[in-house]
């Protein structure tokens, strides 16, 4: 609507009046409120950033460990994989009987947090609580915020509508073979933020 026809108010004073100053004050207060809320959002976003850095640290460790974990003297024994037997060899019945139970993902992830340099990492969303793994991020359970989630990527047959299937890795899944995994962290709303996909 054009205000060319706006009612002509006789100017009382061209200087700001008391009400004008009140308006200016409310503007300043509104800006302060926005800045305060902005800072709160920034703090929360920073926590998500820290969670992402934690995830990246785990990714780096796991990627570095990928090659070595099939060697006999791998440092974190719980994550050690089973080296494939040489082609054509026949396993002796005595040796098979003495072989210990295969490592599982649950044991490996616990070991990563306890034995590797990851033990120094904290969950940014929960003060004083150290980093933990979760089977999946779930927005209904916000206590999962800051946790790390590792999922298995299974390629589908060529021509499928979706290229891969993502499934959770339960703690009892055996870790003896290399698999493709996706590592995510749960943000403040416990939504998954993908960090990386790699082979472990």
């Amino acid at each position: 609507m054009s205000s060319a026809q706006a009612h002509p108010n006789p100017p009382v004073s061209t200087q700001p009046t008391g009400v004008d100053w009140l308006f200016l004050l409310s503007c300043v207060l509104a800006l302060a409120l926005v800045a305060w809320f902005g800072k709160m959002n920034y703090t929360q976003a920073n926590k998500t950033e820290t969670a992402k850095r934690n995830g990246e640290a785990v990714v780096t460790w796991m990627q570095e460990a990928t090659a070595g974990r099939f060697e006999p003297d791998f440092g974190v024994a719980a994550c050690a994989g089973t080296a494939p037997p040489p082609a054509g060899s026949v396993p002796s019945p005595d040796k098979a009987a003495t072989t210990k139970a295969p490592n599982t993902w649950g044991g490996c992830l616990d070991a990563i947090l306890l034995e590797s340099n990851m033990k120094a990492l904290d969950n940014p969303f929960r003060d004083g609580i150290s980093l933990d793994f979760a089977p999946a991020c779930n927005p209904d359970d916000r206590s999962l915020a800051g946790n790390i989630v590792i999922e298995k990527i299974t390629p589908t047959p060529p021509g499928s509508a979706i290229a891969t299937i993502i499934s959770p890795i339960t703690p009892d899944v055996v870790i003896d073979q290399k698999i493709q995994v996706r590592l995510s962290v749960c943000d403040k709303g416990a939504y998954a933020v993908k960090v990386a996909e790699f082979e472990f």
Partner: protein
Amino acid sequence: MEQPRKAIKIADLDAATLLGAEVEANISPDLPRRQWLYAWLLNPNIPGNYQKSVDKWIAILIIANLFTMVLEQVPAIFEPYKNWFHAFDVFSIIVFVIEYLTRFYLAPEDEEFKDKGNPRLAYMASPFAIIDLLAILPFFLQAFVPVDLRALRFLRLLRILKIFRILLPALKEFKALNRERTFRQKIHALVFQSAYGGKLKEFFDTFIGVWVLISVFAVVLETVASVSYLINIEFVILDTIAVAIFTIEYMMRIYSAVEEPGHRNPLTGRVKQFTNPSTFIDFLAILPFFLEALLHHVLDLRFLRIFRLARLLKLTRGSDATATLFKVIKREWPVMSAAAFIMILLIVLTASLGYLVEHAAQPEKFENIPTAIYWAVITLASVGYGDISPVTPIGRAITVVMSLLGIGIFAIPAGLLASAFSDQLHKERDALKASILKMLGDGELDEEEMALLRSEAKRLHLTVEEMNSILEVLQLELESARKSLLQLPVNVIAQNSLHAVEHYKYLLNQIAQLGIYVDQSAFLEKAQSEDRLTVSELELWKRILEHR
């Protein structure tokens, strides 16, 4: 003493001038080189030269520099494109240096400096020239003196000061326009359309528009995981700045609403403004930020973020095309609602039929009528996803009829809207013609009327050709009105003084034409010999012929 108003007759009206269309600058190529260059590039008083374009592109470059300076602070963006940033910086400096040198060279032609003892020195000492120099100096400084990168970035911020070359004149104009007005009226002039906004209001609208686009672009990019992963913090900062700007704009709008016609009461006027759709959109644009910040401990309200896209609707404020569309929808609402009713009826009936004949054959697909409604809509709208399709012969026959009906039924609202929109435009153009005719009641258009005409023509998106054809039609209509006037009895003509004057002019013309075609000596002889004309009548005849 009041200045006489410059008036223009319809026959002299030029559509291109009226619409402010590009006119070719009238600059003689024989001018001395410096004068010629100044006339083309920097003289603000020559219409059709490149001065406005130069200013516009320099302003765009300054704003682009501001954006690159902000983006350089984001390593995820800066690092991969470092070379491009540097190239843009070099390009900007080259342009700014050329601009500075051109202004320096042409200073003796500039009205502001030409009367000074040494115009170029006077230019160099002027505030704008100092700002221009500060904008380019840091770049050269780093070539000769090792400067800390942070200090260099800070110095580059000085480049932004160049924007004052555009802002200050606008501010000056705004002050002049609002000299005797209150603080609230000034705020009103800035946020509402009025005759007091001037260029500053245009800049304010552009500023808000740019922030709307930035924030909407950010909302869209936030959904791209790979981008959001890298610059999530920057998105948070950007949103906070956008909300701060929109909040202040919103408060200004509510506070100064009482200056709007019909909003005089401080309380009800502001409530009325608050409930106004366009102001409510402003409110929706900032609401998600506050709700999310207030309730983030209790609820995850990130779904509200998508409502930030409502900010795009802010751009429709002041859009006459949108206003016309709403007007059309309102006008055609009864017809459209009838069409919608038929559509709903058809959907429900066909869905029920579909359910009836297909449920037995494929109970998992035609599970119930709501599922069949989905199938009916997809079929009637000619979308045809194919996820639910009939298998029985009767079902297929129904689908054939439905598809054919759907083409017609779904096209009705679209056709209605299109024809009503075109009709509305015609009506508005007719209204414009009527208003020109009214303005031409005195046979002329003054500057105020021309300005009104210009804004109306702009609102209706009239091209020079269209305006020309309107003016031609008007000329013909005026001519025809003049002719039909002659058919009226003299006592009727005499009731309108303007018509009486026109009629008098017509009669004088008729006498003059008679004088041209008649044999003068025979006429005089006849008039005098038989005493057919009195002496005074004969005298009047001679005087009319002398003066025409």
